[in-house]
């Protein structure tokens, strides 16, 4: 089969799932099984989506949410990867801190919401704090596990070749953990996206989570549906963007064995 037809076929198959869901949704809404005030028609949601996009509100909310996720996520990665390196390399640090990391990792970030509001009020800071609490500990844990699992043969070769100090970090340790860290980035970015919506529902005055809450308070289930569609689509796009990192030639080995 020529390449383009194969591509078209795959695109068609990929659209089959959403099309089926849409048809089902429209069917249920049209038959009036649920009152329209509780179950919006897809058409109403589509109209709401256009309306909110035109007014710019949905765009602003999206930007606000993405900004918070970016801040919280970048913060967790820039602090979490070095912390993971330390815990992975030093037995002392591992024994001292690993139980703590596991404790905080098991603590739902949503449990921090009251403290976040008490300490940081509402707006960007509490949301960023909550995202950080959700993403930081998984990053630390998986980085430290990756470091601890680097085959010793790489360090022996490095020693033979005279690679040491910061060069060892740059030449061996970081590239050796890169594939696993990238996988963790994908997981935690998804986690951050989940958390920001919850954070904004309670501690926000804008953002997609706030849009959800606002629509519910105004009994605008069409806008509620529209906000949910945007949240899902952006979550998928975020992951697709981060998947691009796995295409970097020097990390391919981690995914092809």
């Amino acid at each position, binding site marked *: 089969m020529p390449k383009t037809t194969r591509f078209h076929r795959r695109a068609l198959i990929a659209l089959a799932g959403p099309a089926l869901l849409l048809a089902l949704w429209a069917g249920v809404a049209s038959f009036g099984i649920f009152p329209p005030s509780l179950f919006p028609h897809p058409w109403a949601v589509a109209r709401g989506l256009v309306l909110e996009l035109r007014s710019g509100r949905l765009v602003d909310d999206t930007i606000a949410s993405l900004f918070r996720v970016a801040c919280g996520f970048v913060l967790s990665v820039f602090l979490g990867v070095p912390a993971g390196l330390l815990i992975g390399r030093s037995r002392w640090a591992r024994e001292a801190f690993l139980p703590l990391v596991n404790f905080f990792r098991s603590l739902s970030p949503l449990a921090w919401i009251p403290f976040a509001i008490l300490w940081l009020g509402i707006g960007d800071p509490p949301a960023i704090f909550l995202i950080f609490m959700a993403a930081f500990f998984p990053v630390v844990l998986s980085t430290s596990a990756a470091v601890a699992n680097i*085959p010793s*043969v*790489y360090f*022996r*070769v490095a*020693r*033979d*070749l*005279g*690679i040491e100090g910061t060069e060892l970090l740059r*030449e*061996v340790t970081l*590239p*050796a953990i*890169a594939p696993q860290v990238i996988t963790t980035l994908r997981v935690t970015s998804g986690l951050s996206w989940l958390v920001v919506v919850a954070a904004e529902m309670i501690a926000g005055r804008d953002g997609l989570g706030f849009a959800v809450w606002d629509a519910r308070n105004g009994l605008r289930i069409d806008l509620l549906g529209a906000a949910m569609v945007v949240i899902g689509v952006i979550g998928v796009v975020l992951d697709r963007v981060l998947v691009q990192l796995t295409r970097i*030639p*020097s*990390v*391919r*080995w*981690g995914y*092809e*064995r």
Partner: protein
Amino acid sequence: MNGAAGTVLLRMAGASVAYGDVEVLRDLQLEVRHGEFVAVVGPSGCGKSTLLNLASGWLKPQKGTVERPERLRMVFQQDGLFPWRTVGENVRLGLRHVGDPKERDRRAAALLALVGLSAFEAHYPHQLSGGMRQRVELVRALAGDTDLLLMDEPFSSLDYLTRLRMRAELARLLKEQPRTVVLVTHDIEEATQLADRVLLLSDRPGQIRDEVRLEVPRPRSATDPEVVRAMHAILTKLGLESDLETIPAPGRKEIA
């Protein structure tokens, strides 16, 4: 290469290693002279790898002494190449002592050509077969300016025919760039084909219990009468072949 032929490059005197209660090597005496190719064979678990770890300095003996050159290169069983580096970059890492980048590129290209892998310079190790990877690892080790080369069962993960090819390749490479080699292997044929001296390690705790010398100069074929004689001597010493089962003497008709 430093040192004239005959100077001792590696010396172990009474070296002993134990992991907890398990004595791995006991009172090891070993001298490897400049330019020699010494193979160490023995049953698995007899401490062959421990012997190499002593030689490389990765491990310190609990008793006895190890005199070894400060710098050396080791070839590992498999996966010693950095998978995040291309084949060419891996070889260039082996040429770190060469200051001029242009000269480094030139030498890396020459080394890859030596093992017929010029076309794979930009490939990553995981895109190569096991035999190709070991060839790259060999030239990366040979790229160094160090004399002593330690090899830890470098071909054991390869299939038999590839192993034969790799042996021929190694013998040829050593002819072009002579090195002092200590090869640890469980493959007696490999040891006798490649080495000047084959040391037999006993069961744990490992001790050198015998030595077989080969007088025919390297490189030699796997079926060279001298190699067959040495193999027979080793198998006899290991109790795997008795002197009654004689091998066909040269000149006598072989029965198919």
